């Protein structure tokens, strides 16, 4: 589980400014340049840097939302991950088959029937003929087109078109799925159906990267979120934290705009101002290690649902500060199950804090614990993450209270 599906290493991407390009590059100027034996002029001023050094690791099986304002570089990032663009510098490694839902129905031909378009679109998306033959019935069934499947696509309603396209794209069976704002496909019924399909992807351990402006989706549905701002990773962490920080920054920029008449929001792609430059300072408090122990004080990897759990947190503060400890419990689908904190009072130096759960009370599965120690109300940016494995129980779901049946 610890391997990464996508690794970006110091990725830069710059584009040539096309307006300048059209002025200066025609057949004639190129010919003149060639005749004069001049090398192509590289003018840094005519380039736009869309991404300015992205380092990102997306673990296998995670669901990551990418948020940020228009022009911040989200789509460029997706296109780089997909391989449509190649980075100017830096490297991108992707493990496994990648499928991108950047635009549904790429390569659909209006004069061809739904069935014919499944074939061509499937091949474009990387399926082999044999795979397609096998999956076509499933795709047709999923798209719910009935007899229309043998009609030309130009006769389809836009909803039918999208349904067919979504059905093909999700039947590619990728290891990594890249999605750009298209979860809401079709009517309520189909939209639910596609949500179910996406959930299926998530539970089967596929990696999903999603770009959206729908912050609620990111918060509820993604386990982690990346906030891209001005071509850089502004924040990467638990989705709720990132979404909150992003909202806060947009609010702050809007307030500033109301006061001063201009703000970073006026210019597309410009980075939002941080409150003060606290973000760049090292946090006061931090957690260096976390140990999970059973009732007898022995370190354990997996726990039973009804066993006690003790969490030991090694914390430290850079200077004397009011320390607040935080504990978040997250289910494998990214849902926040518990978020609780405890004020440890004025502390300095380092030490070990202990949280004792008399009874775990969780259903079988893998959970994630986020432990943090924050000084003087600073926002937690980098909590310590640890996986909690709970042995399977006879029920389903994350909740496992002490219960007794009787007649």
């Amino acid at each position, binding site marked *: 589980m610890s391997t990464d599906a996508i690794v970006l290493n110091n990725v830069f991407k710059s*584009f*040539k400014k*096309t307006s300048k390009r059209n002025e200066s*590059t*025609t*057949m004639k100027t*190129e010919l003149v340049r060639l005749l004069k034996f001049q090398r192509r002029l590289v003018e840094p001023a005519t380039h736009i840097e869309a991404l300015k050094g992205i380092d990102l690791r997306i673990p296998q099986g995670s669901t990551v939302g990418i948020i940020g304002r228009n022009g911040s570089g989200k789509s460029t990032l997706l*296109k780089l991950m*997909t*391989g*449509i*663009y*190649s980075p100017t510098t830096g490297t991108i490694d992707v493990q496994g088959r*990648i499928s*991108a839902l*950047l*635009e549904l129905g*790429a*390569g659909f*031909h209006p*004069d*061809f029937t739904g069935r*014919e378009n499944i*074939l*061509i679109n499937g*091949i*474009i*998306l*990387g399926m*082999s*003929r044999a795979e397609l033959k096998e999956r076509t019935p499933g795709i047709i069934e999923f798209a719910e087109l009935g007899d229309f499947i043998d009609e030309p696509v130009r006769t389809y309603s836009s909803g039918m078109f999208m349904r067919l396209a979504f059905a093909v794209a999700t039947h590619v069976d990728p290891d990594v799925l890249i999605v750009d704002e298209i979860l809401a496909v079709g009517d309520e019924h189909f939209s639910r159906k596609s949500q179910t399909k996406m959930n299926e992807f998530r539970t089967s351990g596929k990696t999903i990267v999603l770009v959206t402006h729908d912050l609620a989706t990111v918060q509820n549905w993604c386990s982690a979120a990346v906030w891209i701002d001005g071509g850089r990773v502004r924040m990467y962490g638990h989705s709720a934290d990132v979404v909150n920080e992003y909202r806060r920054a947009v609010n702050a920029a809007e307030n500033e705009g109301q006061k001063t008449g201009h703000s970073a929001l006026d210019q597309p792609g410009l980075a939002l101002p941080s409150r003060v430059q606290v973000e760049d300072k090292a946090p006061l408090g931090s957690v260096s290690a976390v140990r999970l122990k059973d009732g007898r004080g022995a370190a354990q990897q997996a726990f039973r649902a009804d066993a006690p759990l003790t969490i030991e947190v090694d914390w430290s503060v850079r200077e004397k500060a009011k320390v607040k400890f935080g504990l978040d419990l997250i289910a494998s689908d990214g849902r926040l199950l518990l978020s609780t904190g405890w004020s440890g009072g004025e502390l300095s130096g380092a030490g070990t804090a202990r949280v004792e759960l008399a009874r775990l009370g969780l259903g079988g599965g893998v959970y994630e614990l986020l432990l943090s120690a924050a000084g003087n109300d600073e926002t937690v940016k980098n909590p310590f993450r640890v996986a909690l494995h709970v042995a399977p129980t006879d029920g389903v779901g994350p909740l496992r209270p002490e219960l007794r049946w009787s007649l």
Partner: protein
Amino acid sequence: MIRNLTELYQYRALLLALSMRELKARYRASVLGFFWTFLNPTLNMLVYVLVFGMVMRSAVPNYAYYLFTGLLPWIFFSSSLLGGTSSISDRKDLLTKVRFPAQVLPATVVLTNLINFLLSLPLLLGLGLFFGVTPTWHMVFLVPVLLVQTFFTLALTYLFAALNVAFRDLQHIVGNLVQMAFFLTPVLWDLKSAPAVGSLTREQSQQLLMHVNPMASVMAAWRDIFYEQRIPNWQPLLSVAAISLVLMWISSNVFERRREEFAELV
């Protein structure tokens, strides 16, 4: 170059599917449908026969058949080039939305036109029979000649397609270039009737044309097979093959160097 061609082979399923679709799509909405494959070159030929055979009174015997033996391969060449030049720049939908091997697009155009050419061959043979020309065993040379022409066409189409992404001016000029090449290639006229140019003798200027215009050599080979019914002269063909190889090497390099910017510029 090797990499380019092996990648093309890897994507053969895509290439085939796209070509089949192009073939089907071309005539799908029309009433006569597939018959246009035959009708188009026939009508084309009739126009030329009217102008050059009847009005200008060409001295070539069986002029309609003579014309057709050159016109069909020429249509394969010119349609590939005309369609191929904008094949990449026109497919923004594919290149910017999915990870798509760009070299398949020009190849699709060439393959589609190749298939069209093969499909119209029975028409050529039929016309030959009408003029009393029975096909001979020399037909087997169709394979090497076609290979050379396809390779040459593919190399040139690659180059034009790659360059056109950055220099869209090319797609406007390519039509005129092809038209000029059409008149510089012995399709309508017989090579032997080519006049002397400047201080050169007739033979020399004909030799010069064969050297500077690879399609002239290819055309001569087609005429040898279908019209004169003899073994084509292999030396000029071999030199065309060599030129194609060099051209393919250049095209592949240009293509490789430019393909990263395709998605950004289309």
